[in-house]
């Protein structure tokens, strides 16, 4: 179901960490809220409002169940980026009397890094914890980085680039011990991983619908209400909705969609984790057997099942994507980013600059079939071999030349 013929070319979608197809069951659940139950969920006085409000309440419960919290602890937003901004700016402003130090990692998404950098320009301080070469932050470095004036620790649950899953529970325990608010960016991974905010000591959790087979434009933030009660200074104000933390009329159809997506994730996360892991293992195996000099970026086992970020040495990423046209993926290569800067996550892993340009991110998902990955592997190998024939670096490697010894002519 993930393939589509366009101009006669078969398309296989393997970019699920960028966006996921909205599950048809989710779309079905949302539709009545556009044209039948279209009321404002805060219209207290009539049936249109009540039915919208009921639907939102149900969705709140569905999302809460997914992460192990109470429905009243869920705030709805416009997406993951807003959620991360709300968590970071919200804590920073609310607790600025207590301190102005934030601890985070070098592999966060821009939705976390940019707000933190903006706070640094306003007089806050931040510590960016390094990762090992599999992308893991050591809980011990976190413990050492927390100071008297630390008010927030913000960690990504699982990397959208390489899939590595952090030791969140261990970090949560440290934060509890030190009395610091712990925000986890869980925009990626809720469709296959089990997060329990109490067991993991999480105080704020950002979520995004469109990465878990829900619609775009909606997300949610869990904000702990007890032990301790966490409060956030809102970013969006005018009306008082969502316990004063995120005002504005609710996106009812979007929220209904997110709730349904959460329900499906809750029911299928275990079986999906196993199924997708099987497919990825096979896919990875075919690529590794078919080509020499390929390197997987990310933790070998503690990694999202759909994640395969792989460097094809001596082949530039964008050219490989072009060569396997029809296989829809992303690359860590500078050529593909708007700023011509290679991925900060790959840099943090210690991947050499030359290898960074050769990386491709495949992200398998709910609608990926075995046939998809068989075809994709075949296309990838074909394109890779063609590009190796075309590569002067591969030619030098084959001649036994040590590329690190060469003095390159460049500006």
């Amino acid at each position, binding site marked *: 179901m993930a393939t589509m013929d366009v101009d006669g070319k078969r398309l296989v979608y393997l970019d699920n960490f960028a966006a996921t197809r909205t599950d048809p069951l989710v779309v079905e659940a949302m539709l009545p809220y556009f044209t039948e139950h279209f009321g404002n969920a805060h219209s207290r006085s009539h049936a249109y409002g009540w039915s919208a409000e009921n639907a939102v309440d149900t969705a709140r419960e569905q999302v809460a169940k997914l992460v192990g919290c109470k429905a009243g602890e869920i705030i709805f937003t416009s997406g993951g980026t807003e959620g991360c901004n709300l968590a970071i700016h919200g804590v920073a402003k609310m607790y600025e009397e207590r301190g102005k130090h934030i601890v985070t990692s070098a592999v966060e998404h821009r939705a976390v890094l940019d707000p933190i950098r903006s706070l640094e320009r306003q007089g806050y301080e931040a510590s960016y914890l390094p990762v090992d070469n599999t992308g893991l932050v050591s809980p011990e470095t976190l413990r050492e980085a927390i100071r008297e004036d630390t008010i927030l620790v913000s960690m990504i649950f699982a990397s959208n680039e390489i899939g590595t899953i952090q030791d969140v529970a261990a970090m949560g325990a440290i934060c509890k011990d030190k009395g610091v608010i712990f925000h986890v960016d869980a925009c990626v991974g809720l469709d296959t991983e089990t997060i329990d905010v109490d067991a993991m000591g999480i105080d704020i959790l950002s979520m995004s619908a469109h990465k878990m087979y829900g619609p775009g434009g909606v997300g949610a933030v869990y904000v702990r209400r007890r032990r301790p009660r966490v409060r956030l200074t809102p970013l969006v104000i005018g009306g008082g909705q969502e316990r004063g933390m995120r005002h504005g009329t609710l996106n009812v159809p979007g929220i209904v969609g997110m709730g349904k997506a959460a329900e499906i994730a809750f029911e299928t996360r275990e079986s999906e984790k196993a199924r997708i892991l099987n497919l990825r293992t096979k896919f990875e195996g075919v690529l590794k057997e078919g080509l020499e000099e390929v390197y997987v970026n990310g933790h070998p086992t503690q990694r999202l099942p759909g994640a395969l970020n792989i460097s094809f040495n001596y082949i530039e*990423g*964008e050219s490989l994507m072009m060569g396997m046209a029809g296989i829809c993926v992303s690359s860590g290569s500078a050529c593909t980013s*708007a700023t*011509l800067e290679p991925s900060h996550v790959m840099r943090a892993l210690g991947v050499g600059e030359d290898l960074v340009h050769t990386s491709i991110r495949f992200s398998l998902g709910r609608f990926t079939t075995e046939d998809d990955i068989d075809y994709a592997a075949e296309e990838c190998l074909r394109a890779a071999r063609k590009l190796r024939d075309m590569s*002067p670096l591969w*030619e030098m490697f084959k001649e036994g030349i040590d590329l690190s010894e060469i003095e*390159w002519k460049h500006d």
Partner: protein
Amino acid sequence: MAYGDKVIDHFENPRNMGSLDKGSDTVGTGIVGAPECGDVMKLQIQVEEDRIVDAKFKTFGCGSAIASSSLATEWVKGMTIDEAHALKNTDIVEELGLPPVKIHCSVLAEEAIKSAIEDYQSKQSKS
């Protein structure tokens, strides 16, 4: 980012992809760029009596880089050394319809041509 048709054409059907004998006196080899930059072009020319009779390229780089170097070899074949030296990156940009963010690929191709010529000429002055 949608790729231009000409860029795709050069990618699918590269002209003159391959290698010449870099040890030969009549061959000039230019290697420009760096792996850390994501662009390396090797461009070689075979020269007979001041005219380029054959040219080959190999490129590590994006589709636009591959197309730029492929086009460069296509153009220089049949040119004199001086004519090849006069090729400007802007000619490549125009022919391929490269967007601003890819202009540097054409610059590298121009440098590759000049580097190959320089290599050939330095071999001539030694003999």
